């Protein structure tokens, strides 16, 4: 059962990732991005991480993708659509990306012993791995300082966004 769900979710993720990077219209890309993110949320559920799946749907789909939609709808798309979509260096870019991919696959194949080591040393946790309880205990226990730094980062991002997107005084008059 989990096998079928995995294969169908990964097929969805792959197809819609291609749509994201190939679509002419940014609106289409944003919709495809939503599909990819939903498929990833499903994959997180297969891997026993319910909390992350929920956060994925709430933050990514509910927040980030909606932000993309807002910005896309502010641009005039007519002029964008007639221009060429791909930059001049596309051939070199694809070659280097494929070289990178081959390298990553090589590392995965080479590191199989490391994964086997992991299989044996599983630490058993009470009532599921990625429940809110387990994630919260670690997040607010050992990793509370990074958590606070993340909040400061978000504050800085809010201020920076407001400053960048604000009109300058001359423009307003």
């Amino acid at each position, binding site marked *: 059962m989990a096998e079928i769900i995995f294969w169908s979710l990964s097929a969805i993720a792959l197809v819609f990732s291609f749509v994201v990077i190939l679509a002419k219209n940014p609106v289409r890309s944003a919709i495809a991005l939503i599909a990819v993110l939903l498929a990833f949320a499903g994959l997180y559920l297969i891997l026993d991480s319910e*909390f992350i799946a929920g956060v994925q749907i709430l933050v990514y789909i509910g927040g980030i993708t909606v932000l*993309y939609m807002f910005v896309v709808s502010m641009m005039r798309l007519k002029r964008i659509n007639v221009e060429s979509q791909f*930059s001049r260096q596309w051939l070199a*870019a694809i070659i280097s990306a494929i070289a990178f991919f081959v390298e*990553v696959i090589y590392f*995965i194949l080479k590191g199989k012993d490391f994964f086997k080591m992991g299989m044996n040393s*599983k630490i058993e946790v009470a009532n599921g791995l990625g429940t809110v309880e387990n*994630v919260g205990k670690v997040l607010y226990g050992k990793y509370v300082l990074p958590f606070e730094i993340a909040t400061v980062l978000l504050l800085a991002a809010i201020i920076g966004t407001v400053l960048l*997107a604000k009109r300058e005084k001359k423009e307003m008059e």
Partner: protein
Amino acid sequence: MSLYNFLYLSSIIFTLGVIGVLVRRNVLIVLMSIELMLNAVNLNLIVFSKLWGNVVGQVFTVFVITVAAAETAVGLAIVVAIYRHKDTVNIDEVNILKW
């Protein structure tokens, strides 16, 4: 279903994100490709969290999602500023720092 399949999937999606970043001219789609790459990394972290039975990988995924949200907000604000200033979203045309 072995956990290797997840690793292969995430490396494919990451490569697609790299291609999107390097090849597309529309800066919005470049930002979306960065989201693809971040998601691939998240999937990796969660697979290893499951493999070792340790929840720390998921905690780091929460941090990655936080950084992704901050990055998107700032990135889109920059896009809006560029669009207002130069009336374009093509990254090829934004080259005033090039010498």
